[in-house]
């Protein structure tokens, strides 16, 4: 199981939705970090704890879009984690499920 710590491996201050919106976007994280990790590992844990915070646009562009891309298998392959801030992980899971329903 591979672990991506967003604050350490991407940015402690994640940004908006698309690359053209600005730096550290959800699209940038999904394309440059998450998808390459999924190409190499069956399961990827995304640790959300140490980042300052997330806009809903960022979360939707990461978790909603990856769910639309991978389909149902995403629930087993992408695992949001936030031990100290469980609501972050809960919210990310909501975006995964919402992405599947679209």
């Amino acid at each position: 199981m591979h672990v991506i710590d967003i604050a350490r491996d991407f940015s402690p201050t994640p940004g908006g939705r698309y690359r053209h919106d600005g730096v550290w976007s959800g699209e940038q994280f999904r394309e440059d970090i998450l998808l390459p990790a999924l190409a190499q590992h069956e399961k990827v844990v995304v640790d959300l704890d140490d980042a300052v915070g997330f806009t809903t646009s960022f979360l939707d562009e990461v978790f909603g879009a990856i769910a639309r891309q991978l389909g149902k298998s995403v629930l087993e392959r992408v695992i949001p984690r936030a031990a100290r801030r469980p609501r972050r992980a809960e919210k990310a899971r909501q975006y995964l499920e919402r992405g599947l329903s679209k």
Partner: protein
Amino acid sequence: MRGSRFTIRMAGILDFGFAELETRMKLSRFEGIPLRQGNRRQTVYVRLDELQYVDASSLLYIVAQVDRLSALGYQVLGNYPKRNPARWMFNEADFRGHMQGRAGVGVTGGNRLKITRKSSGDQLNPEDWLALHQFLATRGDITEDQQEALYQAFGECVENVRQHAFVGRAPGMWYAVAVSPHPSGPCQAAVVDLGVGVPGSVRKTNTDRVKDAYAEGLAFVARILGVEELGKLADRLRDDWTCLFLACHGKRTRTADEERGTGLSGLREVVSDPASVSTLRVMSGNASVAWARTAEPKPNRWPRLRGTIVCLELPPDARD
């Protein structure tokens, strides 16, 4: 060749929360400056020496108006308030730098006041509103979840301003500020632009939003709007207050992306929580809506402001 000089005098208090009418009337003096004509040197002098208190929104609005007048070709001069806390606020915001046209784009300010000045054509940097997180983190009276929700929703508001404030126009400047005058003082955060205000597209989509609200049985929307028949809604949808109210409620059209435009409604949800201590105030055109945990806003009509102001305020920390 002789030039002409206009003077704008600000005295007393500028505080939307405490004296909105007075504050709007004073700030609307900037709109009385005529368009610059000819090549004569023309100066606007902003007199602030008798100003005693200024809130974050008013500070940013003055900074934005100074930029606007400078862009129109005026030489903008002025003085500083003699008294604190107004003097402290203008000092921290480097108001002289704005008047002299040397204010940089990006984040500036001191430890307790951070001001962001950017063009709507610029890309976003999450650090543009990081100061709010830093101030929220020092508060003992709001939970980590509330801090995070406020920070998230404020970020959405910044993104919305960048995308929508100047729609249909050339890019303009937008401003964000986070200020915490002292550790146990009130914390204010505001986003200000002098853009289009409530855009026509919002007024149009509100028709569907209101119909949806009725379909969902949200009787309070109808009650607060004072509208009994759907056919009469079109009249109300030209109204700034109605548009602001619905934007804060996040009523959406059936076709709109669920995740778009959640900034205002996200902030409203946090401040409406029974455990919340914060207040949200949104002002545009001739209207304002204020949300806190206790009450729904009432319709109002004020002297018109240019653009839109979104302000979040937390009272002094109850622990101290």
